[in-house]
């Protein structure tokens, strides 16, 4: 079978390509150039990502498969980066990797793959797909390695996309993936895992967004609406954030508050883009029991009655028991059995039955 592997230059997609080639598939490596790395990059070594493309090329040479770099700068900018900036500007916390998966890798890249006669697109995600012969649907499941599972970022893939998706490392623990890379002497075997959003240099998303939206000052307010200080734009904050609030010192003394409650740390509770307010308060106020989500994608089919599921609300969140009720129009309401901390608009709520992804949507 001819399979295109989306190669990022990291160890996971490199091993994915190597495994498929070893299994005898006709493997084509494709890497996406996502942002301009040519102009003005005169400081050698300052940019990691052109190195990543070269790493992908070296791996492809090592396992003897053809490899091409495709220019997706414009699409990436339109479909991922713009959305990322707009979401922050709107007081939400975006999830660009999920957008990139459903709108780029398994969309534009998959279209190209079909043009090259490929039957499937493989990536280095820690997730599994399984065909359900009874229903004819494709099941999406968590990767075997729970600590590395990336199914959360794949919830928006359609059945059509999943039917042609291959995740070769999903049934292996990370250690085994690295070990395999070493055994095959892949040039990226010891390369550290990437931790950051690929287009944000130095993890500094605030500067990145700040460059792309007009800076608008605003104020911190407490839950009663009392102004506590000023800030340089709501895009600098995310629900649940504690660090960098710079309001503790500015906090006016409470008329009847105790010293102890004044010292309690403040968290971002919500963001109000209409008047640029950042609402802060104690950790206990971050707790919520319900959420609504829209743009819901039902991988396992839309249920005709409310269902019980475990719902995950961010990448590093322990999925929690909840009732999920469809509201129509691709929206759902999720009612957790126990309150959850920092339900964050813009992130995804993904519904699981054990390891199986039932579906998911974008938190309102």
């Amino acid at each position, binding site marked *: 079978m001819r399979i295109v592997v989306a190669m990022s230059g990291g160890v996971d997609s490199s091993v994915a390509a190597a495994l498929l080639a070893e299994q005898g598939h006709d493997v*084509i490596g494709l890497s996406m*150039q996502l942002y301009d*790395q040519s102009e003005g990059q005169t400081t050698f070594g300052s940019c990691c990502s*052109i190195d990543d493309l070269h790493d992908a090329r070296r791996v492809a040479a090592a396992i003897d498969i*053809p490899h091409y770099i495709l*220019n997706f700068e414009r699409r990436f900018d339109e479909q991922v980066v713009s959305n990322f900036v707009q979401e922050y500007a709107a007081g939400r916390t975006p999830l660009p990797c999920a957008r990139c998966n459903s709108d780029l890798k398994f969309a534009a890249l998959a*279209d*190209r793959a079909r*043009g090259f006669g490929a039957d499937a697109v493989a990536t280095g995600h820690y997730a599994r797909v399984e065909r359900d012969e009874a229903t004819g649907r494709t099941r999406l499941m968590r990767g075997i390695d729970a600590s590395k599972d990336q199914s959360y970022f794949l919830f928006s893939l*359609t059945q059509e996309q999943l039917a042609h998706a291959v995740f070769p490392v999903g049934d292996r623990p990370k250690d085994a993936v690295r070990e395999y890379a070493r055994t095959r002497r892949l040039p990226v075997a010891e390369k550290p895992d990437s931790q950051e959003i690929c287009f944000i240099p130095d993890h500094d998303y605030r500067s990145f967004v700040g460059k792309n939206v007009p800076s608008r000052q605003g104020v911190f307010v407490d839950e009663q609406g009392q102004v506590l200080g000023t800030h340089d734009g709501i895009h600098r904050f995310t629900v649940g954030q504690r660090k960098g609030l710079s309001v503790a010192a500015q906090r006016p003394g409470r008329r009847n508050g105790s010293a102890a409650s004044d010292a309690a740390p403040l968290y971002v509770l919500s963001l109000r883009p209409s008047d640029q307010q950042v609402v802060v308060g104690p950790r206990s106020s971050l707790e919520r029991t319900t959420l609504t989500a829209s743009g819901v994608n039902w991988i396992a089919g839309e249920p005709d009655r409310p269902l019980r599921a475990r719902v995950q609300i961010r990448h590093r969140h322990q999925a929690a028991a909840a009732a999920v009720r469809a509201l129509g129009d691709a929206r759902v309401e999720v009612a957790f059995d126990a309150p959850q901390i920092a339900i964050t608009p813009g992130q995804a709520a993904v519904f699981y039955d054990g390891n199986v992804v039932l579906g998911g949507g974008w938190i309102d």
Partner: protein
Amino acid sequence: MRVYFDYNATTPLAPEVLDAIARVNREIFGNASSVHHFGQQAKAVVDEARSAVASLVNADPSEIVFTSGGTESDNFAIRGAAEALEPGGRRHLVASAIEHEAVLNTLKALARRGWRTTLVPVDQSGIASPDRVREAIAPDTALVSVMHANNEIGTIQPIAEISAIAHESGALMHTDAVQSAGKIGVDVRALAVDLLSLSAHKFNGPKGAGALFIKRGTRLQPTMTGGKHERNRRAGTENVAAIAGLGVAARLAAAKIEREAERIGTLRDRLEGGILSAVPGTAVNGAREARVPNTTNISFDRVEAESLLIALDLEGIAVSTGSACSSGTLEPSHVLKAMGLPVHRTQNSLRFSLGMFSSEAEVDQVVAVLPRLVEKLRGLTRKPVSA
């Protein structure tokens, strides 16, 4: 059978060239600057190659300086002329908009250091008109640099006329002949240029060897400084084996230049005609008459060149989207843009370039495979993601 139709990117070595390089590497290791026997042996090899290159372009051997290739020759010509003429108050440089990056980026580098630069536009056929060059020239123009043949579309520029205009105002004339030398007759006297760049690997010589013709009496500042090699013009121990390969390639090319141009031109026309009639929605970019005989650049409507290039490679057919030198990825061609082609045509064009080992069978194979690939890609273009 793999088909290689990317001779403008680089060419395979001619067997005689390979033999010469191997022989020199095996038998002659001396430094061409050394006084003793070993040095003299090496010097003789370099001198023979110099004569060969000189006769390829109708120059005197003393006017040929060996370099590491086309890019170095272009840098040497432009930077060397700019520096040499600067004390006389000449701080302006002119080039065509369709030059190779070796020229364009050298101009940009000089612009950052205070030189004024002007790029001469080309017409829709991809040719820079002498009149436009005349408009671009200023009293303090130091150098005019216009390529002889364009690498992407193959068009041949009116160098002799442009030289005359450059000389009228006392400017030096350089031509980047990397894509013409060895393919068509190149005569530095007929072109009336002061400086001419060529590169061995574009005509079946080795990579890493090239030459700059410097007309006798031309003031040029060396850009590579060091020892007294190449008559003080280009320092660095000569790459004797590669230079020997360049010399043999030059002799081979000169011996059969008209015959080969005829043979390859016939193949190119067969390919071009075959594609235009077998694939609907195709058109040739640039002038079809004033062109090197090995090159055709074709637009494919509703196809991304990037995809077609890859689809062809997966079928064992190697072509290019234009200049191979950028980043290995694809930007819209600056040449097609300069010709005023609409954006989609700058992104849907492929370059087919033929050469020494190209055959009719290869041409027919490409013409046979293309319609299916194009049709498949057209079927997918802009297909919305099914929900």
